[in-house]
């Protein structure tokens, strides 16, 4: 009752007034944002060679895990929440193998054998097996990472810092606008391994991971790659997700009004575990950040209203809305405004939901 009475009083005006004031500075910053972009464009020409050198470092980051053994402890933090994990990573002539154990809270584990990923949740008595279909079957569909980066980021080398006793080159990818986050990367000078990374929104850290201890190029005991958790027949086993094929350009959906720098890199149809209806999956990228758009038919059990918001999870934002008789879910490691703009730009013409 109290709240209602207050609403009726003039207090409401006091509460609303600041919002009106908020609109103006926001537009003012808008226009300065555009001029920053222009300056950024000039800077990237001036710093073209520095940027090129920085890009070589980025490529090293991408390549390093495919060639190196390492074991270590890393801390992942976001939203004031922190979690420590142990990673064992091995490469041999049979491919890449990895085990990550979460050391804080309920035990969880991820075991990866090339394209097969198993996730263990002992407290929930659940094992989830996933096959990463794209890498194996559709290598050409994978985005070429780091292409066209200069359209959206100012890439620069900013000096050296020591992380976990390794000398690291620091690379900054500074977003040219607010439609994406900036990233700061600490790369081991000797091996190219990424030892620390921060996703930033201007000066604020959105999420961060850092190795607190790591041994690179060490001999790996294969025992360390085995799950610490034994599956029992009574436990839930799920295999998920499977890709059903590529349908480039055939989904019948288009995304107009993409934020600058983003382009479509991929369009596939997926079938997830326990589902028979395929889900359309369109992927967009600005060369660094990726955004996925999932489109599926509305079902009668759907909790969704016309729009649905999800809290941000680290750098990931999620936005869902209904379009006709479909639910369009947009997910990406980009600011909220970006998933909303992309989500709202998804238009349909004709959709065939056949398998």
């Amino acid at each position, binding site marked *: 009752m109290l709240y*209602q009475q207050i609403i009726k009083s003039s207090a409401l005006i006091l*509460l609303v007034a600041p919002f009106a004031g908020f609109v103006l500075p926001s537009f003012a910053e808008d226009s300065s944002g555009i001029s920053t972009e222009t300056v950024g464009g000039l800077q990237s020409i001036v710093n073209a060679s520095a940027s090129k050198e920085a890009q070589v470092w980025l490529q090293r980051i991408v390549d390093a895990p495919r060639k190196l053994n390492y074991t270590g402890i890393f801390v992942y933090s976001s939203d004031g929440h922190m*979690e420590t994990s142990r990673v064992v990573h091995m490469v041999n002539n049979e491919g890449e193998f990895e085990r990550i154990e979460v050391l804080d809270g309920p035990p969880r584990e991820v075991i990866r054998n090339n394209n097969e990923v198993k996730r263990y949740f002992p407290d929930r008595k659940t094992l989830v097996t996933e096959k990463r279909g794209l890498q194996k079957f559709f290598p050409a569909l994978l985005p070429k990472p780091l292409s066209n980066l200069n359209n959206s980021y100012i890439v620069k080398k900013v000096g050296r810092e020591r992380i976990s006793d390794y000398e690291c080159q620091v690379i900054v990818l500074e977003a040219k606008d607010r439609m994406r986050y900036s990233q700061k990367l600490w790369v081991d000078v000797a091996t190219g391994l990424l030892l620390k990374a921060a996703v930033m929104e201007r000066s604020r850290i959105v999420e961060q*991971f850092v190795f607190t201890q790591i041994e690179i190029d060490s001999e790996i005991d294969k025992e360390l790659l085995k799950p610490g958790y034994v599956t029992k027949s009574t436990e839930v086993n799920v295999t*998920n997700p499977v890709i059903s094929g590529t349908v480039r350009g055939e989904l019948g959906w288009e995304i107009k009004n993409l934020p600058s720098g983003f382009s479509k890199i991929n369009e596939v149809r997926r079938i997830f575990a326990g589902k028979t209806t395929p889900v359309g999956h369109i992927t967009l990228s600005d060369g660094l950040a990726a955004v996925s758009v*999932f489109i599926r038919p509305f079902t009668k059990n759907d909790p969704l209203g016309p*729009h649905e918001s999800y809290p941000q999870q680290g750098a990931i934002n999620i936005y869902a809305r209904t379009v006709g008789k479909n639910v369009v879910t947009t997910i990406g490691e980009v600011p909220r405004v970006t998933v909303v703009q992309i989500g709202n730009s998804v238009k349909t013409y004709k959709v065939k939901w056949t398998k």
Partner: protein
Amino acid sequence: MKDKISALMDGELDSIDVADTISQIKESEELRNEWSTYHLIGDVLRQPTMSIPDIASNIRNELDIESSVLAPDIPKERKSQVFAFAIAASMVAAVAAVTWMGGKTMDLPLTDKPSLQAVAPTVTSDPVLAKKEEAKTEKLVLHDPASIRINDYMFAHGEFTAIRGVSPYMRTVARRP
């Protein structure tokens, strides 16, 4: 209805009405706005140093800290996000079933069956009431498949991250508070 929202916020609503009121809030934007506004008022009133001139500057300061938004339809979104967080913060004990909000979706088992474990136990001695309670709770829990779906989506999306850091599964593993 407004009385009920007010009572819900103060924890004075009886347990049967809680589920019902939440689903109504979810379906009506007007009620969601009401909910947000009540929280805003409540927050302002609870500030120990509150004085009228300070409200404006406090809110303005808070807004300055927040990132500015560019798209014209953002204010609407902002409200619903406020709504999501408000629910998460104030309802933890009463309705654990509100996991569809996404806050705890990261490590849900990927089954399509509504998980009744996710529901906070309700204490009632009246069998008729209990049954009614159960029916309503179940309706709420149907949201679970949505979060499972989000989980699937997050994982499928993970394949496209350009710089994966230590592992493409870093975020997949992470559990949120």
